[in-house]
């Protein structure tokens, strides 16, 4: 007789979801499924709107990563305009995108995941949160607050608002960089680098305590996908897509935005509103791939900045091929924060960064456009078609969390098989299954366009469909 466990809601993620664990007749885990339980449907209600509204409209998908949607939407609209936007606008967009990555990675690592790492996976649930962290490790909590605040301040000072700014527009940006803002950001970067290097040193000294989690937290061969520059360096805005396998062999490279449908197809599972994209050339579900910080570091050969290059060198020592354990998404996230500071500094020192030529003007010159950028959680894709008046006739959004859907399902199955024993869920096992999901830092409001608050749940179901145990954690 098979049975089922349900975790509902899953906690400390951006969104509502639940996990179902299926047991076989011997009480062993047979399968686990990650369900996203809300739907918003931005693709449909954007139809009929002018393409010029798409950056502002789609940014409302989320309050955590609106900048990412602004970037992908603006790039798709640039393609509809069929213009080359000014170089300074590209650089300013890159700075704001990196600031978004810094603040989002800080939120994921310090606020959501570090309580597990510092207090322990088995610590009392009431302590495993940012307040518990503030009480036990105030230095780490202060570092997280500083990093997140700085990322948000960069966005606010350049783009006007920390959430949902209207600064990025089709053809460029609507305001140049002010000299005093440039000076202020540059003055803060050394402190940011000091903080993140200190945290990186801590992580490298501490991850050895998590050998079991590293082994069983979504540690399996898969493909990895991310943007890279022509010189193989790490990129979050420009460049082209690269796909590598578990040995870091390049299996597809130089993929331009408009070509994505030759490589990515989408599948819909009946038990989730989260789409399941897959690598088309390998079919479903074999074409499982991962995106996000771990994938980006697996895809790029170098960072293109000196301090993060040293950290990437150390990261490479984890594996002869690609780093496969999703536990190390945390590690990759910290390296990307360091890279973000270095790259922002490089961009702010470009001679034309204060240029006032930051926007190209045109009407719609192409019937469709695709925009790809790297969101904190991975590659984000917006694809629009417009009529001759520039009104949206069709839209498709493929969100980072969706790219990782197949990998998250496989990851929780692996973790559940290792940690869940019997037909009752122990708190430590529950937290570890949830923590696999947290490694990916999913943003479910983005990925399904869900509405409202979004904690998760876990359910254990027997072979006859009986719910044996259910854990619901409302926060």
């Amino acid at each position, binding site marked *: 007789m098979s049975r089922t466990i349900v975790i509902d809601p899953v906690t*400390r993620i*951006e969104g509502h979801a639940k996990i179902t664990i299926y047991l076989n007749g011997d009480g062993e885990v047979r399968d686990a499924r990650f369900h996203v339980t809300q739907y918003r449907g931005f693709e449909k209600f954007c139809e009929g709107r002018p393409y010029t509204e798409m950056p502002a409209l789609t940014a409302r998908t989320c309050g955590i990563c609106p900048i990412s949607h602004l970037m992908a939407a603006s790039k798709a609209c640039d393609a509809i305009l069929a213009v080359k936007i000014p170089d300074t606008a590209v650089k300013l967009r890159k700075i704001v995108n990196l600031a978004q990555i810094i603040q989002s990675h800080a*939120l994921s690592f310090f*606020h959501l995941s570090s309580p597990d790492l510092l207090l322990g996976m088995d610590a009392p649930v009431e302590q495993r949160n940012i*307040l518990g962290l*503030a009480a036990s490790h105030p230095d780490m909590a202060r570092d997280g*607050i*500083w990093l997140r*605040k700085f990322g948000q301040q960069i966005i606010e000072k350049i783009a006007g608002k920390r*959430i949902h700014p209207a600064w990025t527009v089709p053809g460029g940006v609507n305001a140049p960089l002010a000299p005093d803002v440039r000076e202020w950001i540059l003055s803060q970067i050394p402190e940011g680098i000091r903080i993140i290097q200190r945290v990186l040193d801590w992580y490298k000294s501490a991850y050895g305590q998590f050998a079991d989690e590293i082994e069983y937290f979504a540690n399996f061969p898969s493909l990895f996908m991310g943007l890279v520059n022509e010189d193989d360096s790490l990129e979050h805005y420009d460049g082209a897509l690269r796909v590598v396998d578990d040995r870091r062999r390049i299996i597809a490279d130089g993929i331009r935005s408009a070509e994505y449908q030759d490589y990515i197809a989408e599948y819909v599972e009946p038990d989730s509103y989260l789409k399941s994209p897959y690598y088309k050339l390998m079919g479903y579900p074999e074409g499982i791939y991962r995106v996000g910080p771990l994938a980006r570091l697996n895809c790029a050969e170098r960072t293109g900045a000196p301090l993060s290059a040293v950290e990437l060198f150390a990261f490479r020592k984890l594996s002869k091929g690609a780093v496969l354990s999703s536990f190390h998404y945390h590690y990759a996230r910290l390296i990307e924060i360091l890279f973000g500071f270095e790259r922002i500094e490089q961009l702010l020192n470009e001679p034309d960064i204060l240029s006032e030529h930051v926007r190209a003007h045109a009407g719609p010159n192409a019937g469709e456009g695709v925009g790809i950028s790297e969101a904190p959680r991975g590659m984000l894709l917006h694809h629009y078609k417009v009529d001759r008046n520039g009104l949206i006739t069709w839209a498709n959004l493929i969100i980072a969390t969706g790219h990782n859907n197949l990998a998250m399902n496989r990851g929780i199955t692996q973790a559940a098989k290792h940690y869940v024993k019997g037909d009752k869920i122990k708190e430590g096992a529950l937290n570890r299954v949830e923590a696999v999901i947290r490694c990916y830092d999913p943003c479910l409001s983005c990925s399904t366009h869900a509405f409202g608050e979004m904690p998760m749940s876990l359910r254990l179901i027997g072979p006859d469909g009986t719910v044996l145990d259910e854990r619901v954690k409302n926060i």
Partner: protein
Amino acid sequence: MSESKISEKAPHGTLVIGYGNSLRGDDGAGPCIVEWVEQQNWPDVTTISAQQLFPEMAEEIALYERVIFVDAAAATVDAIGLQPVTEASDRLMAHRCSPGSLMRMVRELYARQPHAFVYTIPARCFDLCTDFSPLTRGCLQDACKALAQLLAK
């Protein structure tokens, strides 16, 4: 800012934090009050307008002698409320928290305990609109008077 850098600065002045969603009717009462406070140009009074409270505010709050939160709350009485903030240990979300949990973070992270109060403005309508209900509109005027008296002390 590190704890040592915070401690180098003596706490000074009052911070008024009005929070809520201005596109959700009466929920915009907090930001509306902040807008009014800004127009008064009172010395030593700083404001923050936000949709919600979040942990990053702890660092800013630590720099002030006094902090006043202004929030809309579903009406149980027809008058504004003023209460001191007591520390809370609620399991705050990563990007949203209560005045009590925020004040606890201020003490634990920055060793500061500003006097903290929360004004609650009774609210009836949280629909998608930018107007206030008659109850909230009336209470906003009361809140402005009360706040002026409090800040004069």
